[in-house]
Structures are given as structure tokens and as C-alpha cells.
């Protein structure tokens, strides 16, 4: 036994409580300990994933109560993969933001790293928990960390962004609670596996209403179209690395929650079409809005929302190929978008307004960072031989298998828009003259930031040139998601086998 999934939650929580104390001993520990914890989570999630790959799903019970009664954690191929993505990103974000802005005082710095750690832990919790109310709690943990991180910088509009985020997040939790109330009132249980197994007994009227409230509640976290007003503001005003964490961590967890509802909990086939529709609308609106952005991070934020729309479309296809494509997309997005946020936040480091027009000619002064930004742009718009291409291709082939030609056409048209706005920025960075009055004063990234970005860049290239490095994992994860009865059996039986 290499460890247990519960440690993915318990250790960061313990660390969060410990940090204020040890911060009094040596201040630097406040920065270092979260890194160590995140590294530990990374190692643990990877080893667990390897183990899951060999021995099958790990179901962890809490407080010794068997599955339908106690809370349980499910570490399967799917959740393990997502948890690994999340912890990896968490670690990279830590590495990047270690002394990101050195002039920040000790107190906020302390909180920053705690929040970051809790953001990652909360997202991991959302993914690996097997209980809807527990998921709600983790959503709140993630949410509060995210609000705090959004409002991290004083003196900017960050409080406004955070307040909008909080307002929406609060509504989201209200909707979630309503949905939980409906489900509990009908089925008398909160365990996902048991809900899934009993779902067919539920009155369809309640089922649909519960689904709608669930999707609305989680959709706010997953940035579905009319619910994502907070997202661009939060991405823009949060510190640079946190934008990466939002794109790579929070949204991933939200998307996971949505698909878990649609694929496992509810047995409404029409929900897949619903996902496609919603995903397409999100994709189109977000990408078209991104086209006209003046601020770099805001553009990246809309792009991120658009990508999530695409992920939902791919999930909505519902076949193995579709799920595979969606997971691939999520993986790629989790690798690429943080790279863009990382390098982008250094491109506009010294700028007040963070406008796109301020990056003119920076390629000359910070070739490495700018090059990585270009690499990320190339990858995210799906140019081969970079990572994004393979996921886009698999989405399209999956859609084509189902004969969704209109979807393919729309996705491709939107891709053109995506290309336009990304390349406008790349052009500015590399091929326009540096202008002292307009452009930003260049700021070279620190060593640790360079490492974090390089890791991501290498991942992009590896996946791009040799996608088979990850496809095996993705295939088993997608089989895992589609295997609903397997999930139910795993959770409930393992619970029973652990006689107490």
C-alpha cells in the first residue's frame, strides 16, 4: 500500500492548520511547506494512479463506515487521472509563484500559499469524493480559496471580480443544496453510487428538476455559458499563476462534477444532447467574445471558457471516443492554458492595465518566455505537431462517428476565430516594434518560473510528438467513466467487503 487517497485531502488540511504556527518559526517555511505538501500530493496521486492501473479502483471509506452510509473516496482511472492533473498543476503553480511578486508582505504571502494549497486540495476532493454533499463541501472549500485568491491584490479591481465570483458561487451552492435536498428527499441517500443505482426508481419530474439545479450549480463552477460572467473577471484580476490554477484546477473539477452527474448519477439520455447544445453555445459565445478583448488575461479567460465548452461537447457525444476526446482535451488544456497564463503574466508583468497592445515587441527582450507563449498559442489552437492537435482531431473523429456534421463545422469555424485572436497576440509579441511609450517594461522571469514553464512546454511537445504516452491512460479513464455499473459495484461491494 503506497498510501491512501484520503491523504490527498488530510495532509493539505493538516498543513493548512500547521502553517500559521510554523510561520512563526521561520517565515520562509510558509512558502516552502505548501510546496512540499503539493509535491507530496503529486507523488501520491501518481503512485496511486499507477496502482489503480494495475489493481483496479481503490475505494476508500472514511471513519470505517461502509459505502452507502459513510463518505467514501473513489480513486479510479478517471478520478485518479484528474487528480493527477490537478496536483501536477498545483505543484507547478506553486513552483511558478514561489516569489512571483516578491514585494508582497509576509502575511498575504502566507495566506496565498495556504489558499493555493486548499484550492488544489478542494479540487482534488471534488474529484475523488463519492458523496454529493461532501462534494458540495469541497466545492465550497475550493470556492472560498478561489475568492480569496481572486481578491489577493489590493488596490486593483480584484475585489470587484471576487465579489462577482462570490455572488455567483453563493447562488451555485444554493442551487446545489436545492438539488441535494430533492435527491435526498426522494432516495434517502447521498452516496453517488447508491443514488446511481436507485435513480431509476425516482420520479422523472424530480429527476429532471434535480438535474437542472445540479447543472446550474456546478455549471457556475464549470463556466457554462450564461453562468460564467464571473470567470473572465476572476481570471483577469487574480494573480497570474492563479489564472493558471483556475483554468487547470477549478474548472477541471467543475467539469468532472458535471459529467459525473450526467454519466453516472442521472439516467437521462437526453442530457447528452443537452451537453452538446450547451457546450456549443458556450464555445461560440466565449470564443467570439475573446476575439474582441483588449486585455491579455481576459482573452485567455474567454479562451479557457470556450475550451471548456468544447470539452462539454465532446462529453456530450457520449461514446467512448467522445469521452476519450474530452478527457484528452481536458488534459491538453490543463497543460497548455497554464503555460499561456504563466508566460502571459510575465509578458504583462509591469503593466497596470495588462492590455494586449502593451506586449508589442517583447519577443526581443524575453525571447524564452515569449517563445513559450507562442508555443502555447500554437498548441491551443490545435496546430500539429503540438499537443492540442491530437485532442482536436479526436473530438472531430468522435463527432464524425456519430454523424454530427454541424457540430464539426461549428467547432472548426470557431477554431478559426481562436486562431485569429491568438495569432494577433503572437504577432504583436514577435513581429512588431517595441514601443517605449506603449509597451511594458520587460521583466525577466525567475529561475523557478522558467522551470515550471519549461516542464509544461516539454509536456506539450511530448504529447504532440508522441501522443501514445497518454492515450492509454485516457482510454482506461474513459472506459471507467462509461462503466456505470462497474462504478456502483465497486463502491457498494468494497464497502460491504470491509466488514466492521
Amino acid at each position: 500500500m503506497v498510501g491512501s487517497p484520503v491523504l490527498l485531502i488530510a495532509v493539505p488540511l493538516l498543513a493548512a492548520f500547521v502553517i500559521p504556527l510554523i510561520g512563526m518559526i521561520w517565515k520562509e517555511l510558509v512558502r516552502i511547506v505548501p510546496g512540499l505538501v503539493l509535491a507530496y500530493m503529486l507523488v501520491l496521486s501518481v503512485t496511486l494512479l499507477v496502482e489503480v492501473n494495475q489493481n483496479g479502483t481503490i475505494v476508500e471509506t472514511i471513519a470505517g463506515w461502509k459505502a452507502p452510509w459513510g463518505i467514501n473516496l473513489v480513486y479510479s482511472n478517471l478520478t485518479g487521472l484528474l487528480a493527477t492533473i490537478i496536483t501536477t498543476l498545483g505543484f507547478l503553480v506553486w513552483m511558478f509563484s514561489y516569489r512571483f511578486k516578491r514585494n508582497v508582505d509576509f502575511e498575504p504571502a502566507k495566506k496565498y500559499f495556504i489558499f493555493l494549497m486548499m484550492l488544489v486540495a478542494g479540487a482534488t476532493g471534488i474529484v475523488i469524493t463519492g458523496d454529493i454533499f461532501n462534494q458540495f463541501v469541497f466545492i465550497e472549500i475550493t470556492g472560498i480559496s478561489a475568492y480569496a485568491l481572486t481578491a489577493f491584490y489590493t488596490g486593483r479591481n480584484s475585489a470587484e471580480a471576487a465579489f462577482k465570483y462570490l455572488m455567483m458561487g453563493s447562488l451555485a451552492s444554493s442551487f446545489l443544496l436545492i438539488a441535494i435536498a430533492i435527491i435526498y428527499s426522494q432516495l434517502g441517500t447521498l452516496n453517488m453510487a447508491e443514488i446511481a443505482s436507485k435513480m431509476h426508481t425516482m420520479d422523472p419530474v424530480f429527476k429532471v428538476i434535480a438535474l437542472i439545479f445540479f447543472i446550474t450549480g456546478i455549471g457556475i463552477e464549470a463556466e457554462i455559458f450564461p453562468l460564467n460572467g464571473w470567470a473572465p473577471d476572476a481570471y483577469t484580476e487574480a494573480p497570474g499563476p492563479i489564472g493558471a490554477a483556475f483554468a487547470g484546477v477549478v474548472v477541471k473539477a467543475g467539469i468532472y462534477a458535471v459529467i459525473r452527474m450526467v454519466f453516472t448519477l442521472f439516467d437521462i439520455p437526453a442530457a447528452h444532447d443537452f451537453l452538446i447544445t450547451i457546450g456549443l453555445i458556450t464555445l461560440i459565445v466565449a470564443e467570439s467574445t475573446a476575439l474582441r478583448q483588449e486585455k491579455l488575461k481576459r482573452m485567455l479567460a474567454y479562451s479557457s471558457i470556450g475550451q471548456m465548452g468544447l470539452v462539454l461537447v465532446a462529453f456530450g457525444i457520449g461514446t467512448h471516443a467522445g469521452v476519450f476526446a474530452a478527457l484528452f482535451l481536458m488534459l491538453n488544456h490543463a497543460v497548455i492554458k497554464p503555460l499561456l497564463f504563466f508566460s502571459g503574466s510575465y509578458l504583462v508583468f509591469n503593466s497596470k492595465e495588462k492590455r494586449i497592445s502593451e506586449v508589442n515587441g517583447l519577443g526581443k527582450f524575453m525571447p524564452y518566455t515569449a517563445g513559450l507563449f507562442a508555443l502555447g498559442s500554437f498548441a491551443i489552437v490545435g496546430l500539429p505537431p503540438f499537443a492540442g492537435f491530437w485532442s482536436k482531431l479526436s473530438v472531430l473523429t468522435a463527432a464524425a462517428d456519430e454523424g454530427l456534421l454541424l457540430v464539426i463545422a461549428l467547432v472548426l469555424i470557431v477554431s478559426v476565430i481562436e486562431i485569429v485572436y491568438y495569432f494577433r497576440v503572437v504577432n504583436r509579441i514577435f513581429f512588431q516594434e517595441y514601443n517605449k511609450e506603449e509597451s511594458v517594461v520587460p521583466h525577466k522571469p525567475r529561475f523557478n518560473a522558467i522551470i515550471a514553464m519549461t516542464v509544461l512546454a516539454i509536456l506539450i511537445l511530448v504529447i504532440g510528438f508522441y501522443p501514445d504516452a497518454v492515450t492509454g491512460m485516457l482510454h482506461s479513464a474513459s472506459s471507467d467513466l462509461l462503466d456505470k455499473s462497474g462504478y456502483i459495484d465497486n463502491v457498494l461491494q468494497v464497502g460491504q467487503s470491509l466488514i466492521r
Partner: protein
Amino acid sequence: MNTIILIFIIFLAGAILTFLASNIKGLLKEVLFLASVIVPVVMFFTGVKAGDSFNFHLAGFAFQWEITPLGYLFALIVTGLGVMAAIYAVSAMQKTKNLGLFYFNFILSIMSMLGILFSRDLVSFFIFWEIMTWSSYLMVVYQGKDVQKVGIKYFIFSAIGAYAMLMAIVMVYSLTGSMMIDKMIQSYAGFAFNMQIIIPILFLIGFGVKSAMMPLHVWAPGAYSHSPMAFTSLFSGALSKMGIYGMVIVMAGMIAYFPEGHWFRIVIAWLGGITAVGGTLWAIAQDDAKKLLAYSSVAQLGYIIVGVGIGTPLAMLAALFMAVMHALFKGTLFMAVGAIEKQTGTSNFTEVTGLIRKMPLTFLASLMGIIALAGIPPLGGFVGKWMLYESLIGSDHYLLVIVIFFSSTAAFLYCYKFLFGFFLGQEEKEWEHVKEAPVLMVIPMIILAGGTFLLGTFPGLVIKPISAGLEQLGYAATQGKYWEMSMLFNEWGDQVVLEPILYAIIAVFAFFLVFLLIKNHKNTRYVSTKDISTSGEVPKEHENLTFIQNFFQPFLRAVEPLMKRQIDFYYNGFGKGIEALFDFTRRIYTGNGQTYALYAIIFVVIFLLLKTTLFGI
């Protein structure tokens, strides 16, 4: 290890090494660059023969790289022109900033073009296609001029094309379950009729963009004129041929399923014809040599598309021959413009005149390039045109003949403008210091120009591989019916014999030249171009007598109705409209948190209201 994969690895490693070495002083980067272009090319010629293949699996798709006769033919263009352009580039790009990027993209372009030609499956085809697109895009924006307009336009159109192609690819995949080109062509006959139409159209959009087919050509003038000339020769000469290559495959495999004279083929041929006319007319109106050549490229590719669209064996032969010729002469001409630009700093006709005595070798190369371009015997351009006309007449496309003929006659106008604008006319004092271009730039030009000369007399040298490629695509053998080494036939057995014609022309030319020069060669003396008969007056040095402004104004006035609006205008309008629309729709995000909350509630309410429709419960 398989030589094919080795070629690609060397290209890739060479590109990266050159990029890394670009900041090192000395000749290391040049040596690396040349080596990484030439070594794989040599390997290609020595270690690879038609039929070699390399297979592997990646990401669940089967990849197959194989050298087919047709691919081999286009690979000849790519490698030949690529090596020449590389040699030219080393000299032309000296003292340029950011050289690493240039070399990197240059090598990648060549690599990706070879990759396209070797690919027998659609995935790797598309991958190489996209690599080619972005590496050439980086070249277009490389000089940093107008990047937001020209560069983006190029990439948008490329992306539209590429994605149209991608859509076709996934449709084929869903229909056949395989990504193999051969499989696609075999099973094409079994598709539903709407698929039979849609898939080729999507493919054609993809290839049409690269080969600058009307109305998808609008990126071409800007892109050709904005990339460094060392690359444009490759860009226009070889890269645009990839579109032709794809078209040949699709046409031969799919459209050939439709009988000759089917409306679908005629539409494509006419698109080619319109492209030719439009490109020519706009070329005439240009004052910048690069733009002129760019539009001329559009027009030339129009001829090729006509040939491919008609699709008879002779037309195919013509189209592919013209493709080879176009690579040769357009490569030459762009290199010449590059040389002039390097020596004088501008490529505008209205600024540069009278370079003939300063840059005689460049002039010679340009002259041969232009003669080949105009299709005048005895140089190679004529052969292609002749075959094209014969095939058009033979396959009953009478109006198209007229259109093509009009375009190629009007081409004389810009041909003359090119030569006159740069080399002839008054020799202004401003350009007295101009010297002949460096030898490394001249040699590739001359070699390519010599190629046009050779092929004009012995077209069999390339028609042979062309017909081999056509046979691979399922066409009947053409030798003996349409061509012998130096002889061309049409459908009715009429012929043109090239070799004696060449000798006759040379003989007459030499005779009269000698006649004109004998005796008085020693006696005559050179006088400057200011010393001319202007009603008895001798103009002063500073008087500008050069006639170049509004050069073809009378002609342009005559064709004015045709040129009133550029297609660009509509595209720009469309783009602006789209942006305005998006600017409007993005106001959904009002910035007011309350509104966002309201959206959420509306979202819920809408789905509650529509739950029966949406979820069927």
C-alpha cells in the same frame, strides 16, 4: 533505420540545431543550415526510390509514408527549388536579424512539404500540411511588415482551408473507418451522393486556398510580397504546388468518378479560369514587383487548376508540367526581385529603373524567366501552355480556351512591365552605385533559368516522371500518344517539334545579330539614355524622362468594369461585420454582477420551462 524517417529526423534536428546556433558568430549557422537542407536531399536522391515505405501507429491512427511516382515528381520540385533557394538565402539574408527563425522555418517548410508528398494517410498529410502552414506563416510575418493584416489574413485563409480539409478527413474517416488515402479513393464510389459532392468540395477548399484559387486567393499577394524573397521563391514555387498536388490526388481519385464534362469538374475548371484572368489583370495594375509577381503566381496557378479541373490525360500532363515550370521561372523571378531589393533597397518599379547595365546577370535570368512565364517558345512555358490549349480544345471547353488565352495574352503586359520597370528605361543617377548581386545569389537564378531553357526543348525530361505519376493515379500511358522527348502531339495527331524550332530560332537570331553588329560594332559608341531624340533637345541630367507611372493606364481603363471591386473588399467587409457583431455580443458580459446572477436564474427558468422538450420527461 529506414531512410525516410531518417530524412525527417535530419531535417528536424537540423532545424533545431540551426535555430540554436543562430546566435553564434561565424559561419556555423550557415553551414548547419545548408547541411540540413542538402544532406537530406542528397539522401532522398540516393537512398530512396519510388515504392519505399514506412509504417507506424500513433494515437490510434495508422501512419503510412510511402514514395509514390507522383510524390516523387513533386519532391523533385521541392528539393530542387529548396536547395537553390537555400543557397540563395544564405547570401540574401546576410546581416538580417533573427536569422535563426528564418532558417528554422525554412528547413521546416521543406520538411513538411516532403512529408505531405510522402504521406499516404490523411492524418500525417494533415499534420505536415499544418506544419507547412505555420512555418510559412512565420515567414510571412518574419519581416514585421503589416503583420496584423497580411499575416493574419494568410493564416485565416490557411486555417479555413485546413479546417475544411480536416472536416473532409474526419468525414472520410467516419465513412470508411480508415485514414488511408487509397482506401478513401477506393471506397469513394460507394458514398452517398451528397457525400460524394461535399467531401471533394471541402478538400478543394483546402487545396484551393494553398494554391490561391479565386475567390480564396486574397491572402496571396500580401503573403508573397511580405515574406523574404529567398523564401517567396520557395513559397510561390513549391509551397503553393502542394495545393496542386492535393488537387491532383482528389481530382484523380474522386472527381474522376464523375464523367468528363460533369458540371462539377467544369465549375472547378472555370474557377481556375477566373483565377487566371483576375490574377493577370491585377498583376498588370501593380507597381510593386513583388505584388506583381504574386498576382502573376495566382494567375499561373489558375492555369494549373484549369488543367487539373479538366482532368483529361493531356490536361493533367499540361497542368503538372506547368507546375514544374512555374516552380522554375517563378523561383527565378522572385530571386531576381530579391536581388534587386537587396541591392537597391526597394522593389517598386516607380523608383528603380535602368538596372540592365548594372545587374546584367540578374537581367538575363529575369529575361529568361519572363519569356518562360509568357509562354513564348522556345522556353519551357510554351510547352505547358500548348498542351493546355490542346487539351481544352480537344475536350470541348471552347470558352475556357478564350479565357485562358486572354489571360495569357494580357500577361505579356505585366511581363513587359516587370522587365521595363526594373531594367530598362532611363538610367537614373540615383542608381549608379548599384552592383551586381553576390555570386551566391546569381548562381541559383541562372541555374533555374537554364532549367526553363532545357525543358523548353526537351520537355520529355519531366514529362516522363509526370506520366509515370499519372499512370499511378490510374491514367492510361501517355507516351507516344501525347509526347516524345522533344515532340508534342494533340488529340488529332497534330504536332509541334521543338528541337529543330529551337535551332531555327537560334540560327536566325544569330544571323541577324551578326548582321547588325558586323562592321560597325567597333564604330558605334554607347551613349547614355539621356541622349535621345526628344525633338532635337538633349534633356538635362536631372530631368526625369522615365515613363512608368500609370504604365498600362489605357488598358486598365478598358477593363475597368472588371476591376472595380476587389474581392478583398467583400472579405474585409465581412470580417469587419463579424468583429462588430462580436463586439456587440460580448456586451452580454455587462460587468454588473447582478446581471450575471439574473442570467443564472433565467438559465434555470428556461430549462424548467423547456424540460419536457429538452429531456423528454
